[in-house]
């Protein structure tokens, strides 16, 4: 009939353990907070465990778990709404007091910007740019077309560049007004 009557497969647990660090990072990316993220991961473990018969060993455990976590995240959001995020409290404060080094980008600033993205763009850029999924896999996890993922990633990049004020080389060279003066000097 089914696999129900055999003892739990140790493979399953091992693979799940191996995926947990990345799954957690995805959860933090989605929810913006560690405490929420860990609750999400816990719910995901429970769900996945209960559904393990529907998982085929040898297929992509990571994508399977990410899909469960993502669905869980959105269903909780629908139920409870998004809480106002001041993720772990201190980013806003650090934002304004941290002097930028020439050409460098503070991690807290980045995190703050990431949180300002719409959910669909954030998950797309995280899945493709950090979790290591191909566009096709990300599309499957998010239940949308590959082209949709691509355009979300691209919009996410543009938005992050705007938020972080890194629009290209001009930002890293001499400041804009100095550059204008320089080019005028040469023009004249």
């Amino acid at each position: 009939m089914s696999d129900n009557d055999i003892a739990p497969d140790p493979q399953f647990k091992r693979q799940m353990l191996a995926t947990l660090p990345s799954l957690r990072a995805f959860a933090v990316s989605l929810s913006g907070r560690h405490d929420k993220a860990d609750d999400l991961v816990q719910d995901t473990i429970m769900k996945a465990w209960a559904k393990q018969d529907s998982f085929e060993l040898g297929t992509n455990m990571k994508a399977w778990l990410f899909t469960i976590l993502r669905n869980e995240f959105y269903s909780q959001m629908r139920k409870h709404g998004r809480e106002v995020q001041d993720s772990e409290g201190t980013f806003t404060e650090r934002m304004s007091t941290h002097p930028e080094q020439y050409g460098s980008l503070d991690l807290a600033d980045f995190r703050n910007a990431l949180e300002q993205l719409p959910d669909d763009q954030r998950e797309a850029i995280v899945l493709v740019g950090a979790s290591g999924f191909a566009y096709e896999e990300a599309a499957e996890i998010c239940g949308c077309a590959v082209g949709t993922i691509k355009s979300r990633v691209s919009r996410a990049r543009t938005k992050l560049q705007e938020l972080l004020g890194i629009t290209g080389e001009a930002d890293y060279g001499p400041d804009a007004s100095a550059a204008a003066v320089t080019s005028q000097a040469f023009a004249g």
Partner: protein
Amino acid sequence: MTNQSKSLTIQEHGYDASGGLDPNGQISRKLREFYLSVQEEAIPDRFLDLLERLDEAERAQADATGASGPDGAGLRP
């Protein structure tokens, strides 16, 4: 225009030749740095405990009934 063709090239490669000035390269690196910083944290004990308990419960159930599947009920702390 030169600017446009340059930015297209950058989009395709993610990094530009100098390895630091391309905005997408900066963003990609920062994104991975952020992700890795969480990923490298130790797995909280609560998850290891949870997996252990799920495992035990399932073994016990398999021994007792020899049939019914796991439902995880009652395990939520």
